[in-house]
């Protein structure tokens, strides 16, 4: 126990734990607010001054734990997590809810702890910690719907943890080590089941396609301040873990590319703006996963930089939509519009966030996303590259345009809410400043990145390309809007994979489980050969030498003619009554 405490002393996590213990004893108000501000500052200072290398050694049941592994990759994530916690604390200054405040501190603390975890067991502890702490931010909304959503969220998050520990256990029995290093090895074919399970656990928290839906389900259900906090940590923690454990795993490139694509379409038709932002979050994660998959120094720099910038501008967007929700009671696009009249500052900050996520030059998204894009292009992944550029235009459509446009412009909803409270404006202002600052002075961000950077984002060609992409897309928006092609905002929800466990599963549980199990085991048996076999089968039939494409004798073709004629005649003369 003492050993654990001394190990914790070296980590920033300690301060979050202390803060969470002390906070309930301080009367609600300025004192508490200051506490929530001070803890992230101390954390950042601890991280900044921590010596590089392994520290915080402890042991548990004979396993050696490393609570503080400091290197440039963990520092950059630790710092941005501290900054996000700080900004969220300002934004939540008005909060008088002890549960949310404690949960926020624990959540941020465990996420930062996971980033510095040097072994898989420590990682697992913090991994589950984030799940347990964060669910209170959803339950704090206090409605029955939020409770159910929170339960679904918790089950999936805990499930991810269970899969992780199962994977860690298998990994340990195979290798005898619980050190958290790269698992990539010689590629996926060399992995054991344990490694696959670890990847699956990471994939769930990183919202891989088809594992993604907990994110869009839960984030819009959280409180105004809770969503801002949620958006920063869990998924980026998973991205960090992927970058640490699976850098250079090629198929992640394709997983990431799919992640950038499909949320675009769902975001575009979603009415709840906070859910739009959740889909957009999913899409941005895709860029980071692509960076992890490429796995070169440039790509990993891109992933880290993009995570850094993304936390800032996604927080900013959630803050501005949250401020609107705070003042009007709704975040649904169909109920909003024309708010620029009375919330101009919120509008400006929202547009800065939108410009950043859309990667306009001079905003933060531009200097980070281009690292990933050029890493993709450098390594000659044409389809992925095309998908990412497409996704960049898509980001503009739902986050860059839809969010600010339908909230603050479009049709006047008749709502005249007051401007956001001062502390929210300060939080948004600081975040917006950070977005622009990074965009204008990218070298300050690049200095923090894990590998040395000799990348220059502001070349004439690159700025021109990006401006062309965005401005032409804007023109498309203007024209489609003007001529009424743009889908109107209307109340409603859209089906996503959560349909499977909210509707379908309850209906067919039981009997069907056995069927699925049987089919699945059958499929798994042949899965290695299956893909090739199918392709061979197809090209065998349809290929240049296949039966469907072969030149046949004229006799056979005439015979076909006769058969078809016969069929027509029989149909007309015999079957049909005259």
């Amino acid at each position: 126990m003492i050993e654990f405490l001394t190990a914790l002393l070296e980590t920033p996590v300690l301060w979050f734990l202390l803060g969470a213990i002390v906070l309930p004893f301080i009367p609600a108000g300025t004192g508490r607010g200051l506490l929530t501000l001070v803890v992230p500052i101390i954390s950042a200072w601890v991280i900044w001054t921590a010596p590089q290398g392994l520290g915080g050694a402890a042991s548990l049941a004979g396993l050696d734990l490393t609570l503080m592994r400091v290197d440039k990759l963990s520092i950059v994530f630790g710092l941005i997590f501290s900054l996000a916690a700080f900004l969220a604390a300002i934004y939540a200054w008005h909060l008088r809810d002890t549960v949310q405040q404690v949960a926020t501190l624990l959540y941020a603390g465990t996420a930062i702890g996971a980033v510095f975890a040097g072994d898989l067991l420590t990682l697992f502890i913090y991994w589950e910690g984030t799940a347990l702490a964060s669910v209170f931010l959803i339950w704090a909304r206090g409605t029955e719907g939020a409770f159910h959503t929170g339960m679904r969220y918790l089950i999936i998050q805990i499930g991810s943890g269970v899969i992780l520990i199962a994977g860690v256990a298998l990994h340990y029995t195979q290798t005898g080590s619980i050190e958290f290093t790269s698992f990539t090895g010689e590629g996926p074919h060399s992995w054991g089941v344990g490694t696959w399970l670890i990847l699956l656990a990471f994939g769930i928290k990183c919202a891989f396609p088809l594992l993604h839906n907990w994110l869009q389900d839960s984030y819009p259900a959280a409180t105004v301040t809770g969503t801002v906090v949620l958006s920063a940590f869990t998924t980026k923690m998973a991205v960090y873990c992927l970058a640490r454990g699976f850098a250079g795993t090629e198929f992640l490139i394709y997983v990431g590319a799919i992640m950038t694509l499909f949320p675009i379409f769902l975001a575009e038709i979603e009415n709840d703006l906070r859910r739009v932002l959740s889909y957009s979050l999913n899409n941005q994660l895709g860029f980071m996963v692509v960076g992890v998959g490429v796995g070169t120094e440039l790509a990993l720099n891109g992933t880290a930089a993009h995570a850094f910038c993304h936390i800032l501008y996604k927080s900013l967007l959630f803050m501005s939509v949250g401020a609107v929700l705070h003042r009007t009671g709704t975040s649904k696009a169909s109920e909003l519009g024309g708010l620029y009249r009375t919330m101009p500052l919120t509008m400006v900050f929202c547009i800065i966030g939108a410009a950043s996520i859309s990667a306009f030059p001079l905003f933060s998204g531009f200097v980070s996303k281009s690292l990933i894009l050029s890493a993709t292009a450098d390594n000659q992944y044409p389809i992925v590259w095309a998908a990412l550029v497409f996704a960049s235009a898509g980001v503009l459509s739902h986050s860059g345009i839809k969010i600010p446009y339908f909230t603050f412009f479009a049709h006047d909803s008749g709502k005249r809410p007051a401007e956001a409270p001062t502390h929210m404006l300060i939080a948004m202002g600081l975040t917006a400043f950070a977005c622009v600052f990074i965009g204008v002075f990218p070298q300050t961000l690049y200095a923090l990145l894990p590998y040395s950077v000799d990348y220059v984002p502001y070349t004439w060609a690159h700025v021109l390309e990006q401006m062309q992409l965005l401005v032409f897309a804007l023109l498309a928006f203007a024209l489609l809007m003007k001529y009424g092609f743009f889908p109107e905002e209307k109340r409603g929800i859209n089906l996503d994979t959560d349909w499977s466990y909210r509707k379908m599963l309850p209906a067919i549980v039981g009997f069907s489980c056995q069927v699925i199990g049987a089919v699945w085991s059958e499929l798994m048996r042949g899965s290695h050969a299956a893909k090739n076999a199918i392709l061979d089968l197809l090209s065998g039939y349809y290929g240049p030498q296949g039966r469907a494409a072969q030149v046949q004798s004229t006799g056979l073709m005439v015979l076909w003619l006769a058969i078809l004629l016969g069929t027509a005649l029989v149909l007309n003369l015999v079957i049909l009554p005259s």
Partner: protein
Amino acid sequence: MLEGIVQNAPLLAIMLPLIAAPVAVLFGNKSVAFYISGATLVLSFALCVYMALLVSDGSILSYHIGGWAPPIGIEYRIDAANAMVMIIVSAMGALVLPYARASIEKEISPGHHTMFYACYMLCFTGLMGVAATGDAFNVFVFLEISSLSTYVLVAMGARQDKRALSAAYDYLILGTVGATFFVIGLGFLYIATGTLNMVDLADKLANSPDNKTIRAGFALIVIGMGLKLALFPLHRWLPGAYSYAPSAVSAFLASTATKVALYVVIRFTFSVYDASSGFERTTLEYIILPLAITAMFTASAVAIFQMNVKKLLAYSSVSQIGYMLLGLTYLNQTGVAASFIHMFNHAMTKGALFMAVGMVVWRTGSALLPSFAGIGRTMPWTAAAIVVAGLSLIGVPATAGFVSKWVLMAGAFERGWWPVSFAIVGSSVLAVIYVWRLVEVMYFQEPKATTKDPVREAPLAMLVPTWILILAIVWFGIAANAPVELARIAADGLLAGGFDNGQTVILGIPGR
């Protein structure tokens, strides 16, 4: 003079190239032949546009050959439907010709150039005649004129690849059997009614009781023509003929020949017979519809795996013909209009694709996939043309292909056949794959280092006609109103029972 031309427009549009063909052969000089055919084809195109304008208000032109009034005399009868087909044929004919002049330099031995122009004009005459005539037997005659010259044109590819010969032979045997079936069908109709004029036929059929001769006639006509239009299991002659023919011939045939045959089926189904009920409807729904959908998928799937790009395009044509037949089977205005619009749009799209591929063949000497490597860099205009036309083939918005698929989907919904829309989308996905294969090779592979001359952009004489078509694809993808309107008028005319509605304008020498 002008009055004379205008009064005889339907006849001149068809007969000018017919007369010019032997004249060109008599001169025996390939340049002279080129200019003669150029002049006649352009004039023919102008006359077609003029006639299309005349009929675009729903009226009908009736031209009495030699002044003999139908049903005794032969009649050319032009409404919106034929006008559209004639515009397709004459426009493609005029556009492909300058392209052909450059293209055949490398593909056909110089001694045969004059013959090429003559055959080209005969083929053109045949196709135009089929579209224009109002006499059922005349359809057969013109069809055989075009078919016979087509066999020759295809066989001219033998200098490049000997397989052109066997392809031409196959086409000859099958085409003749198909045409003969068609003629038997006509014979049954003649035996049943005693007339061959389409208007008269329609009239007599409507007033005669249902009988088996008439039914058998319908089956023979549809299946016989089904071979000429490459209805799915009868399509096997097409890939060989299109891939081994000279590029210009492929471009011209792919954009016109099957369309004209399809027009004949539409004309007989709707104008001569009454497709709205009875055995005609059953034949369409139980035979043509499943075959059309099978074509859309199977032929696309074959296209995906082809290594020869011309063959890939040919199989893609077979699947696109599926779309056109599909629209026909809806038996509603939107569906038939969709068939016509797709005919029009696909003629441009496939014409442009075959022409662009022909340019690559011209430079690299082969239509096999490796010769397309890196032409995004070396032949940027050609590659861009393939991309735009490919997008139209897929049906991407802002290209012509989108318009036709849109109308086709609308027709399916109107008919209540919404599952068909999945087939349309699904088959488009297959199109995405085969077009992407081309794009990938063109833009993402390095050009192969060859010992021959470096690959450069094709000459302007080939590039300009191709790009006219590309611009037309984009133009009709955005400003789609004109063809859609014409197609709707055509569909209205056809569905209203064919020839008898609308104001009839009689042309030709009056009297007798």
